[in-house]
């Protein structure tokens, strides 16, 4: 069975169905059902995935697409792609459920009513593309998904977003197109220089030997990914886009789309251009560490919840990039796990912030206060989500952050120590936001708040449960990720880390 093609086809067909349905409510239900089917299929596929398999990309399908240029419809997953696809498949139904009224024109600060059917159809189209971008094993196909993803997101921000939605949507698009164009040039140059007459990723590994060429091509890919992720200093589009997007779209934007950037660094930059990656490592690590500290400091100073969460993500993307470029097994696995956990964590934060905004009609932190007293469940889940943002042990985000820092310390001690200061800054931005919104005397405007309703609990519950379960038991995910990271690093030819004690022993023998 062509698993990956099915995973993409189902949401596309679902989107067609949703846009044909006349009744808004039915459209939502269909969208939810379709996304649940995709989730179920993903779960089945994941159980059939064999981490120990010698075959690197499983569930592979390769068909000629443009034979003249060696472009293929090539899909397949290793452990890294699998967990990211699973993240996407999980977040979409949650986002659909959370966005139930986002296009209705209800709620305290909703934009005017827009087409409900279009919104949910866009969500499903986006889901297909998110799966495609992680599944693509053909570089050109990857590029196509990379760019095409922008379109549904552009409309979701531009039509369904907040007051400054047009500005934010265009800014998002311009940044992404700028990065995308650089990548396109690099993709084509890669094809030309490699002289393999194919865009298939596995065949392109090791194809570029000349260090100079590697560096130029690396830059083309890397800048595109750095804008996408986004890495400091390419980040300024994200706070606007995330703050203006509806909460659900913001989750997919920050939780999944941005991961394409860090995923791309790990998959394409490292493996296709190993020498250039090593050459640029000091630069990337500096950018990452600056981003960690800078994003956190700017987050502390935010007065708007959604912008604050966006800046925390910039800090977190710094951690991921640090983990990718530290090029140790622990850091790489940690960075991959971080991509998934960050989706749970930021997803929960954005969605609960969205519930608050739906009630109050404002995303300004100062407009809240004392919510704990009137909506204890809402406050409690917000706290757990927040604690996952500061990587509290017992929640899954801790495992990934610990592994990234530990793995980076194996090779870059100073960078890891500076990055670790993020744990203090994270405590400040999260707990201060929590205190200002949830603690203290109940603000007048908050008094009428209801607690989370059943639908909202179904949105938050799974995310909180996953954060806790994988916090204590990350093994199932790491067992899938570890072999894939090993494989990736083996293409880069780095000496693996050995503890000083073992090293001495080895030398003695």
């Amino acid at each position, binding site marked *: 069975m062509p698993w990956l093609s099915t995973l993409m086809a189902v949401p596309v067909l679902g989107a067609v169905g949703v846009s044909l349905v006349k009744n808004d409510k039915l459209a939502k239900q269909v969208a939810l059902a379709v996304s649940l089917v995709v989730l179920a299929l993903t779960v089945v596929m994941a159980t059939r995935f064999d981490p120990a398999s010698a075959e690197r990309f499983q569930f592979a399908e390769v068909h000629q697409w443009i034979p*003249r*240029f060696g472009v293929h419809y090539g899909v397949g997953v290793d452990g890294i792609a699998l967990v990211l696809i699973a993240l996407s498949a999980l977040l979409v139904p949650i986002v659909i459920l959370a966005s139930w009224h986002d296009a209705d024109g209800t709620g305290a600060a909703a934009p005017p009513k827009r087409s409900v059917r279009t919104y949910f159809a866009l969500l499903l189209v986006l889901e297909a593309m998110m799966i495609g971008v992680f599944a693509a094993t053909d570089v050109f196909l990857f590029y196509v998904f990379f760019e095409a993803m922008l379109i549904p997101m552009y409309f979701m921000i531009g039509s369904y977003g907040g007051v400054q939605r*047009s*500005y934010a949507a*265009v*800014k998002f*698009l*311009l*940044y992404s*197109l*700028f990065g*995308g*164009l650089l990548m396109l*040039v690099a993709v*084509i140059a890669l094809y*030309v220089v490699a002289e393999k007459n194919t865009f298939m990723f596995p065949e392109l590994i090791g194809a570029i030997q000349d260090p100079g060429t590697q560096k130029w091509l690396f830059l083309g890919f890397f800048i595109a990914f750095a804008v996408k992720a986004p890495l400091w*200093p390419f*980040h*300024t589009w994200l706070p606007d886009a995330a703050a203006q997007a509806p909460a659900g779209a913001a989750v997919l934007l920050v939780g999944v789309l941005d991961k394409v950037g860090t995923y791309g660094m790990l998959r394409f930059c490292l493996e296709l251009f190993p020498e250039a990656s090593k050459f640029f490592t000091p630069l990337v690590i500096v950018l990452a560490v600056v981003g960690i500290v*800078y994003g956190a400091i*700017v987050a*502390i*100073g*935010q007065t708007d919840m959604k912008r604050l969460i966006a800046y925390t993500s910039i800090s977190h993307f710094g951690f991921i990039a640090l983990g990718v470029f530290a090029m140790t097994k*622990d850091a790489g696995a940690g960075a991959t796990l971080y991509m998934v956990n960050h989706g749970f964590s930021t997803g929960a934060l954005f969605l609960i912030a969205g519930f608050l905004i739906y009630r109050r009609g404002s995303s300004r932190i100062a407009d809240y206060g*004392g919510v*704990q*007293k009137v909506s204890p469940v809402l406050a409690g889940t917000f706290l757990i989500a927040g604690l996952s943002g500061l990587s*509290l*042990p*017992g929640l899954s985000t*801790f*495992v990934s952050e*610990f*592994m990234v*820092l*530990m793995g980076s*310390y*194996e090779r870059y*001690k100073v960078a890891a120590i500076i990055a*670790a200061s993020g*744990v*203090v800054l994270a405590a400040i931005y999260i*707990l201060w936001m929590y*205190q200002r919104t949830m*603690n*203290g*005397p*109940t603000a007048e405007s908050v008094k009428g708040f209801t607690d989370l309703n059943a639908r909202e609990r179904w949105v938050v519950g799974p995310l909180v449960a996953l954060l806790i379960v994988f916090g*204590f*038991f*990350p*093994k199932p995910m790491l*067992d899938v990720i*570890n072999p894939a990271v090993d494989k990736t690093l083996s293409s880069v030819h780095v000496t693996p880390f050995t*503890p*000083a*004690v073992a090293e*001495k022993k080895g030398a*003695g023998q």
Partner: protein
Amino acid sequence: MQSPVEIFQHSGGVIGVSWLMIALPLLGAAVLLLGGRRTDRWGHLLGVVMSLAAFVVAVAAFVELLGLPAGERRQAVGLYEFIPGVADMGLLIDPLSISFALLITGVGSLIHIYSIGYMSHDPDRRRFFSYLNLFVAAMLLLVLSDNYLGLFVGWEGVGLASYLLIGFWQFKPTAATAAKKAFIVNRVGDFGLLIALFTIWSVFGSFAYKNLGAGAVQDAMAGGSLSQGTVTAIGLLLLLGACGKSAQLPLQSWLLDAMEGPTPVSALIHAATMVTAGVYLVVRSGAFFEAAPTAQLVVTIVGVATLLAGAIIGCAKDDIKKGLAGSTMSQIGYMMLGAGLGPVGYAFAIAHLITHGFFKANMFLGAGSVMHAMNDEVNMRRYGGLFAVMKITAVTFFIGYLAIIGFPLLSGYYTKEGIIETAMEHNEILGWLAVLGAGLTGFYMSRMVFMTFFGKRRWADDAHPHESPSVMTVPLVLLSIGSIGLGAYLILGNRFMKFLAPAVGLPAELPEPHIFGVGTVGLATLALVAIGAAFAWFRYGAAEVPEVAPRGSFLTVFARRDLYGDALNEALFMRPGQWLTRIAVFFDNRGIDGLVNGLAAGIGGTSGRVRRIQTGYVRSYALSILFGAAVVVGALLYVGTM
């Protein structure tokens, strides 16, 4: 000197299921939090039962451990693979960890029971008990884990419980701020602990205690893979973590504010157990500290500085809980001093930690009983003469008082004296400073007792004090029994030192504790304590206590303001931090974004004005797409014709 014994892998028996100690209270917390209001009626009972159940398991495991020969009293229990290739979850039952487990579950259960009464009028009592259960579970993980990573999970877990409980009355802005402050200051310590762990990992490739014993450290140093500088750094970084958790200088400032939490919390977390975790960490990491004399010296200096600072703060506080908090800081300073003195010191430090757990919990709960009677008044200037109306509270408090000042034959006498004597052997300056601290303790604790239970009644008009219900007084009585006899039991005949030996080692020469020592140091200590108590009597017992605090000398103000610790933090970190934040936000909005907006607008063919992007976007969009498409087509054509 005798080294710690080897760690064995255990299966079966009670020790095999010692994870129940953690699981049961964790289950309690989960049921109460998820169950919501439905569990309000019986939630507090479930909390108590789960804590008591953990105590029962701890006692049974203790008995089983005692049944083993001394050379096998370190039993590791594997649980599951936590982070593959990095660390497994597992427990280590040895004399050190089981001592803590008994203290945590024993004193913890008494405080749970007491809280039934203390929190009976609070609408959120169930939530309170769920947090208490969560705390017990996390604290047990901290001390029982057989590796540093599990310890760290518990370490931050107790930090979370502490945060939740300090801020339990979160609708009070002061409580919310205090909770946040405690967490953030602790995270500064955790930062140090994290770097220590990374360094340990980079040298040893393991977090398990069994791979990080004295032998492993010595081998690594002999083999050249662990330098003296690195091991000293590990020690100092671990100490930074310990300072955060245990409110030692320079990370002490959060503990006084933490008194915003309900009093049982102050007793359990901020006196008896959590704040002593730093001492546990230093003792558990003895292998590193013993290889790093410089780090050990710094531990003792931090201990002495804090024991004096806490005592000085305690001398000036009128708030009974803050007075006790200063005292806690000071007593943990003693423990930290002991922890920096090698195996003899470890035994006295942990023994003092245990007796302190009893007498300080006893006094905190006593203070709670007084507050309960006085409409939550905490100002001792509005107390006075309470002995007559609440005899059980007063007598039990008095016993705790005698124990902490080191009155001969009571618990604190033996354990504190042991630390002072050991310190004296290492370094006379530190030793005499510790004696001075004892004198200060004599003063501030006597002051507290006189102001609260004796003298004229200075009560508020609406105060009608009465003795607390038996659910609160019975725990007081049980704790005061421990305050009387536990010290003698542990110290005489070096009973505790020998018990602890498998975990931390045994010195070549054992000290010779007397029932009543008549050495110079001991007598000098007693004399200073007596002088301190007498001075307190003249100022607060015999003389009238003004209801409004007099302005006080420079020294008094210095002590009242917590030795300007907060002022220092604000000047050094908070205000510069706020400026940095503001500058960064401004820079981000205007600098980077402004530049890029200008650039984008330029590329889009519109003018460089930032505002233009908002109006000229359609054109920019179209141009970009066009440009992109052109490149693709051009490239494909080029390739196609090759």
